[in-house]
């Protein structure tokens, strides 16, 4: 994931229609497309199908991977409460990180959008820049800030008087959520920012001239217009957080497992590849269902905004 991952501001559907359509034959584009298509079939589709198949194979401590078709791994995931707990933790962490990113990121995008020329660009660079900095380096920063009971964050919070006793951040869900919210924040700001670019500032002025207060303008004018941006940003943040690897691994440690770190363990430590493949396939299916489902809901709810 990096988070690195992925920049999916328009959810892939935003391939613009051709400016001028060439009608010199239906076969004309295929020579251009064929190399990339062949590459993707060979190195994306085939490996993914192999992974699905792998999740149905058997694995033994001494025999390794056995090429039989069995539901054993899926039954294990289904019946063992350990996996249920792990997936619940994964989606709980992702959900909380998404909520924090929305609550902090949306107002910041709005403030950013109202800034003047040199500052706007400068702060946009400061806030979006971390997106391109290695997620390992950013997470290391949080590990240093949290760093045990004498961490900088705890010292600062106690100095301000917000807390009396240090909060454990390292190796806890709280720490993972905060670090993930930070890692994913640029996606949220970017998404809300994109929505704000479509807002006509004159509407705000019109409301003002009609005697609306700041709160009313915020609630009735701004919020409804940026909501699609918040929601599509939320989907991106949620999907990337639920499949995050480096951050939960470094901040959460070895015991606080999420789906990605568990799959990694099964593959590189336990060497039970079929079980790891089943966890990964389940994560993929769950995320696809969540993304497609919430996209459909958002598009129906905000059809007039997307038109």
């Amino acid at each position, binding site marked *: 994931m990096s988070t690195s991952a992925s920049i999916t501001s328009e959810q892939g559907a935003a*391939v613009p229609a051709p400016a001028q359509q060439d009608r010199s034959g239906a076969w004309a584009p295929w020579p251009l497309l064929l190399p990339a298509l062949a590459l993707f079939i060979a190195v994306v589709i085939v490996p993914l199908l192999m992974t699905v198949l792998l999740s149905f194979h058997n694995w033994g401590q001494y025999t390794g991977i056995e090429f039989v078709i069995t539901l054993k791994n899926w039954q294990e995931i289904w019946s063992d409460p350990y996996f249920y707990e792990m997936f619940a933790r994964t989606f709980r962490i992702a959900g909380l990180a998404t909520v924090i990113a929305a609550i902090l990121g949306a107002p910041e995008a709005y*403030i950013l959008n109202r800034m003047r020329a040199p500052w706007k660009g400068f702060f946009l660079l400061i806030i979006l820049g971390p997106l391109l900095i290695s997620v390992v380096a950013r997470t290391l920063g949080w590990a240093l800030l949290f760093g045990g009971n004498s961490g900088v964050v705890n010292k600062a919070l106690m100095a301000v008087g917000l807390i009396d006793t240090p909060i454990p951040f390292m190796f806890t869900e709280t720490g993972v959520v905060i670090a993930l919210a930070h890692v994913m924040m640029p996606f949220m700001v970017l998404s809300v920012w994109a929505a704000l670019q479509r807002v006509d500032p004159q509407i705000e002025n019109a409301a003002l001239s009609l005697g609306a207060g700041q709160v009313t303008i915020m609630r009735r004018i701004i919020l409804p217009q940026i909501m699609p941006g918040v929601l599509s940003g939320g989907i991106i943040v949620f999907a990337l957080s639920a*499949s995050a690897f480096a951050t939960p691994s470094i901040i959460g440690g070895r015991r606080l497992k999420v789906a990605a770190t568990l799959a990694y363990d099964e593959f590189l430590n336990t060497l039970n590849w079929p079980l790891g493949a089943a966890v990964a396939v389940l994560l993929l299916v769950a995320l696809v269902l969540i993304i497609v489902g919430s996209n459909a809901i958002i598009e129906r709810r905000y059809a007039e905004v997307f038109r």
Partner: protein
Amino acid sequence: MSRNGPLALIFHTLFVIFMVAPILVVCLVAFTPEGYLSLPTNGFSLRWFRTIADYPEFINAFWISLWIGAVSSVIALLFAVPAALAIARYQFRGREALSALFLSPLMIPHVVLGIAFLRFFTLVGISGTFPALLIAHVIVVFPFALRLTLAAATGMDRSVEMAAISLGASNWTLFRRVTLPLILPGVVSGWALAFIQSFDEVTMTVFLAAPGIETLPVRMFLYIQDNIDPLVTSVSASVIVITMLALILLDRFYGLERVLAGHSDRGR
């Protein structure tokens, strides 16, 4: 347009501190003169940056990252430029589906990609090799290469091409002398963004890396798993500085907002 009130500016300041603090603390701790993790309280020291030189695995990983990033981005563009031209110019059956397929590495969790590649490369018999790592990175950076090229190809003025064709230019000449120069800004920034993505990738690569064939983020990650010391913060600080420089260049030449947002304002 109305200005931001004092409350908004306080929120903004706290937000910026939140975003910058983890990055800043890495850079500060990297300069500590002490042998343990601490903020440099009595003077700045470069000792931990000098220590990097004694760890060939970091230097080696850095070069591998550089090579993988540069070469995989070029290979991705070799596939992406023709595909982008086809998608930008023709209306054909399966156009939407193909675009979705080509952008799918953005949507598929990298941990799933890592597992799929590991399984595939193991069966093919090239697991743990440099070419395997390279192919995997080509796929991961492909959407970025495609997107920026697509944006450039869609916005291109076709009349120049028509003129060249009417003057008898061959297909190859047309591409080399007219089309490519026109979409070059998109191609170059596509390369730059693809390179950065490859250089930062850790989740997928960690599945494919083998001793001696690790990228820098993977080496850093594996090191941090064992212990966190000033050495790894100085390596991280170096990575941050390199990325920042690349970022500033990218911003100068193309505009960071356009690169990151794709072409959200034009694409609708």
